[in-house]
């Protein structure tokens, strides 16, 4: 478990982690400078330090009030999705688990849509706070519900049945399709357009207000998950093996599911469904660092943040003056990667 002396310097977990963190900072800075309007790095620094030059007011606003909160939201959402992916892969003991693929995101979306469509009937409009709470709680509950369902149905005698796990994801995505169908039926065309854009995933809702409540929750969730990094290793041996090694698996799993699915649900409520970040980033990190969760979890969080910052940058600059839905972009890259994993796994017959 100690870094063995044969490892080269760039294979040391601490070094790799530092490099990823550096990459994240670089990506954040580049993302703050690039966009529909290219802003010189010095202006970016000035704007961030609030030393706004008067002739550059628009640049200042773009950097400080549009890009900065958006980039920070990308960091938080990306970190949540990636760490959730890594944790779910450990819980399900399968490297193919992803919040999107096994239906956690869809569960979150189902929660969000149900609330949007039916919440307005149940809660009087005069209680806006209740709406605010509902729109965050319902997706969290949806995500947690689906994860528990997947676990119940896919677990057979201590082993996760991969096909069942993925089929439940399929069913959940179909259910969300149906719910959007109801939403189509019960709503006007404009709301429908809103659902569609929301379900495609976007960070356009990011601002400092959103960040002020999102950041503490996500930071708490991630630090809570990081506390279980050693236990997650044991979980990989199997349910009973982990118990025999002194783990209260039942309790641990309940907490992990609560934190991960809750976090994913929250990001879905805010940004819609952004798939594959939770699948790809833990994989890349495992390639670099091995499967040890003590390094994998923080690395995944950093890498997920980097991935989403870059993806959002691409979404913003790929079409001038307008943006590509973020979820579409991540799926375009992620789906082929998923296929590659399946082909490779099939060749090795290792899952």
């Amino acid at each position, binding site marked *: 478990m100690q870094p063995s002396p044969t490892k080269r310097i760039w294979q040391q977990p601490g070094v790799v982690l530092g490099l990823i963190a550096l990459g994240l900072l670089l990506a954040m800075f580049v993302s703050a400078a690039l966009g529909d309007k290219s802003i010189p790095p010095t202006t970016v620094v000035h704007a961030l330090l609030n030393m706004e030059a008067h002739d550059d007011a628009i640049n200042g606003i773009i950097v400080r009030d549009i890009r900065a909160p958006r980039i920070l939201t990308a960091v938080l959402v990306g970190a949540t999705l990636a760490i959730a992916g890594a944790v779910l892969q450990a819980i399900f003991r399968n490297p193919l688990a992803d919040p999107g693929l096994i239906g956690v995101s869809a569960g979150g979306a189902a929660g969000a849509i149900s609330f949007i469509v039916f919440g307005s009937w149940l809660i009087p409009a005069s209680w806006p706070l209740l709406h605010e709470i509902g729109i965050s709680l319902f997706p969290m509950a949806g995500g947690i519900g689906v994860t528990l369902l997947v676990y119940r149905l896919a677990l057979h005698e201590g082993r996760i049945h991969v096909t069942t796990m993925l089929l439940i994801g399929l069913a959940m995505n179909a259910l969300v399709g149906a719910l959007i169908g109801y939403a189509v039926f019960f709503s006007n065309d404009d709301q429908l357009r809103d659902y569609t854009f929301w379900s495609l995933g976007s960070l356009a809702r990011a601002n400092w207000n959103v960040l002020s409540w999102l950041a503490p929750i996500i930071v708490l969730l991630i630090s809570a998950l990081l506390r279980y990094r050693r236990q997650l290793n044991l979980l990989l041996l199997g349910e009973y093996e982990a118990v025999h090694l002194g*783990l209260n698996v039942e309790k641990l799993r309940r907490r992990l599911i609560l934190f991960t699915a809750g976090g994913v649900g929250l990001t879905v409520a805010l940004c819609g469904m952004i798939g594959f970040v939770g699948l790809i980033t833990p994989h890349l990190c495992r390639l670099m660092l*091995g499967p040890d969760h003590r390094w994998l979890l923080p690395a995944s969080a950093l890498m997920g943040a980097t991935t989403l910052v870059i993806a959002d940058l691409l979404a913003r600059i790929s079409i001038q003056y307008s943006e590509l839905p973020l979820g579409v972009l991540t799926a375009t890259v992620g789906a082929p990667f998923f296929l590659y994993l399946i082909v490779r796994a099939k060749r090795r017959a290792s899952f």
Partner: protein
Amino acid sequence: MLRCDNITVKRGTRAVLRQLHFDLQAAELIAVIGPNGSGKSTLLKALTGELALARGTVELNGQSLATQMQRPQDIARWRAVLPQQSELAFNFPVIDVVMMGRSPHLAQVEQARNLEICEAALEQVDCLALKDRRYQHLSGGERQRVHLARVLAQLHEGLNSDGPALLFLDEPTANLDLKHQIQILHLARQCADRGAAVFLVLHDLQQARAYADRVLMLKAGRSVAFGKAASVLSAKRIERVFDIPVEWVHHDGDALLKIKNPNSNTTNTTT
């Protein structure tokens, strides 16, 4: 150390174990044998808490198992279980897998000492050279030995002092070649000699007779016999339970199991 009173275990509505009684003492190795489907692995799972009891009680050190299982972190310091097959879909280095066995002790023992214990355990199973190899690159037999090293590392304190140690092994020889089968049985025997209570599910009757203090023979979920290895494993009883005519042949102080074949003169000893 372990007492098992009148236990019945059901899978669905079917009872797969009925009214079993037996006990396991410290410094003793008990082998469970029986034909396929007689309930050997089920019994091990019931004793380790993986399967719920329909009736009866299992006691560890005078306390019921169910109560103790509520604090798995305590029990894990002196009880280890090696399942028939451990799967690990993630590619850890071997030393990390063995180190997982030390996780119940991490709070009490410093890191460098834990590493020493793990390396010693790997040496015991003849796998120290594999220390830095990746788990998924190992053969089935090597994996099994690495997991054995893991449980040995877990029980290190119990095996090297007067503390209690309880070891469950579910057909640990299944994937191994003859040399490593013998090596693992030796290790299990050593554990018992050093004060551990060892519960071993085994297929090979000759090995059971050679290594076990007492033998529990099961058939169709019932106990057929429980007692000293030599007396339980009588040729007559084996013939009745396993449905094959055998006789014991004694040679240089070892008992060899010979399968009787009335139609020819060839003899065959099982391994």
